[in-house]
């Protein structure tokens, strides 16, 4: 393996990992703080992609479409939390799993009714619709670099909020001991609504900015969900830092695993998860 090949693969792994982080960050927040296993998280990723596809057609501009789609995603999160989850907090985990599993079916069917079964695409938006030459015969889309930048920036913002704001302190405290936070006079119900909406919006946003890089098709969120659970488990449930490093590890493992040990490519991430659980059962950063 020469250096150019290695560096390009490093870039590929980093880019995939950063996108995974964006999706997994919402999942780990909801999982860690609210104790909700949100199986519908992948479906939200899909809804984000379809929303931006639809709105780009209507508004004629990808960036306007993203601006319009984010509030819709937040409202969707609000509705789901207030209307459905709110009544189930006192019940056993199984009820919440059943609910979010039901949501996958409902959202997939809604997608089919609204947008049909065809495969769609979103064109790579200006000014990023160009490529740079990496090696003799390989180019790299500038938009991919842009997506990496956005993911890194968002990771920075999330890190800052968690470390340096009062809200961050409450969220971290909530992840450790929910009852104590409530005992200190903090309205946990509002906190839950906020976290769920933000979590949903983060993954929907990931679907939006990933839309020009992928094909928009029914069920596109189903396979990403499993990968994101692996990221969350490796990183430690509820830990943003864990989600970040977990995502980078999985991104690199997927990329290099595919090339170096192709026969194990589909198993690599699960082997890593098993290894991490053996050494640190609560995840790397829990």
């Amino acid at each position, binding site marked *: 393996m*020469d250096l*150019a*090949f290695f560096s*390009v*693969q490093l870039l*590929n*792994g980093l*880019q*995939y990992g950063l996108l995974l982080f964006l999706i997994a960050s919402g999942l780990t927040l909801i999982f860690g703080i609210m104790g909700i296993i949100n199986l519908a998280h992948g479906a939200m990723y899909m809804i984000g992609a379809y929303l931006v596809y639809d709105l780009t057609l209507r508004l004629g501009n990808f960036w306007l479409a993203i601006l319009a789609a984010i509030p819709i995603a937040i409202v969707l999160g609000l509705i789901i939390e207030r209307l459905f989850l709110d009544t189930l907090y006192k019940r056993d985990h199984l009820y919440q799993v059943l609910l979010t599993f039901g949501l996958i079916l409902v959202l*997939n*069917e809604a997608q*089919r009714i609204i947008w*049909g*079964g*065809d*495969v*769609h*695409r979103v*064109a*790579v938006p200006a000014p990023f619709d160009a*490529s740079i*030459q990496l*090696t003799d*015969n*390989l*180019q*790299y*889309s500038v938009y991919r670099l842009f997506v990496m930048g956005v993911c890194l920036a968002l990771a920075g913002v999330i890190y800052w909020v968690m470390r340096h704001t009062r809200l961050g302190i409450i969220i971290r405290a909530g992840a450790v001991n929910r009852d104590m936070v409530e005992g200190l006079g903090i309205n946990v119900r509002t906190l839950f609504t906020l976290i769920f909406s933000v979590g949903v919006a983060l993954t929907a946003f990931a679907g939006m900015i990933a839309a020009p*890089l*992928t*094909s*928009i*098709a*029914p*069920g*596109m969120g189903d*396979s990403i969900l499993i990968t994101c659970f692996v990221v969350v488990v490796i990183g430690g449930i509820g830990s943003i830092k864990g989600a970040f490093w977990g995502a980078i590890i999985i991104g690199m493992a*997927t*990329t*290099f695993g*595919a*090339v170096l040990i*192709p026969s194990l*490519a*589909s198993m690599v991430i699960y082997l890593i998860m098993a290894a991490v659980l053996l050494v640190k059962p609560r995840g790397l950063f829990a």
Partner: protein
Amino acid sequence: MKTFKKTSLATLLSATAMLSAGSAIANEDPVKLGLMLPYSGTYTALGEAITNGLKLAIEQEGGQLGGRDVEYVELDSEADPSKAPQNMSRLVNGDDVDFVIGPVHSGVAMGMLRVAKQTGAITIIPNAGLGAATNELCMPNVFRTSFSMWQDSYPMGKVAYDQGHRKIVTITWDYAGGKEDLAGFEEAFTAEGGEIVEQILVPFPSTEFQSYLTQIASLEPDAVYTFFAGGGGVSFVRDYASAGLKESIPLLGSGFLTEGNLSALGDAGEGVMTTLHYAETLENDANQSFVSAYENAYGELPDTYAVQGYDTGMMLVQALSVLGGDTSNQERLIDVLSNVHLASPRGPLSFSDSHHPIQNVYLREIRDGKHEVVRIAHENLEVPDEACQM
């Protein structure tokens, strides 16, 4: 064409004979068609296109088969192999259908065929391309109006060699359908003297292709042959183009790479060459009238899945008109079905001893967002079916 005229005449004669022989009983009940196709999930578009094509063929005959009304029992297969045996039993035993039409997905086909073997239900496969269905699993009551993976990819092997390619990288998903497709291509390409530099298998259904594209660039082959379908096909072709590989390393593929996805591919698809048993631009009378009838009925252009549904309908139309609608003698029904000759939109279509289509495979190139036919890549191609001699 000659055979077709002869068959039509025979059709007419025997139809009259059957009618006069008195099929009063047969005419009373409608013909029940059980459709076991995906109406939800990834393959929804395929299930709908097949259903549309099938109904169009029967509507063109006044909504009847051999003088009997038609009743459709539509069952969502969900493209879920684990539910296949149960769904198939429901159609055959519960709804008591005369014909089962399905599935799209090869995994579902395995489950269906098990029940088809036990019950003897007449099953017509309008898509699923697993070779075994008409080879190792060999059943007199099973027909196929579609293709096998091998049939659509084999002709590309010679095409690639004739275009001057000697070293080729092949890439597909790590699952049976993809591997069967690659096997057909590789068999023909290596027989010509070409070399497969690397066969890349991507975990199914991942569409994260960046690391493989980097690998392809570093291998510097003469061309790449690929099989992906649906959203994966669109992702691969677009990623391939945006990695700048399309100019230096031509992309060849099975027709399913781009079928039904032309608008989603956009510019990335231009110049991609594929082999398939159909192209919407084929210039024969049957195709031209089919395309306009389909567009009138459904407001969109048909794809190969719609044609497969349409030919399933035409097969039933022809067979039941020969039988005057009498489906009571299964042996005779199977005999008539296997002798069907169609002037299909895809060209002449007949069936081998193993009930697999004998058909042309076309070399197609995407130009201005359409599959233009370059030439016939292989005329009247029969598939290997040594394991199935009926």
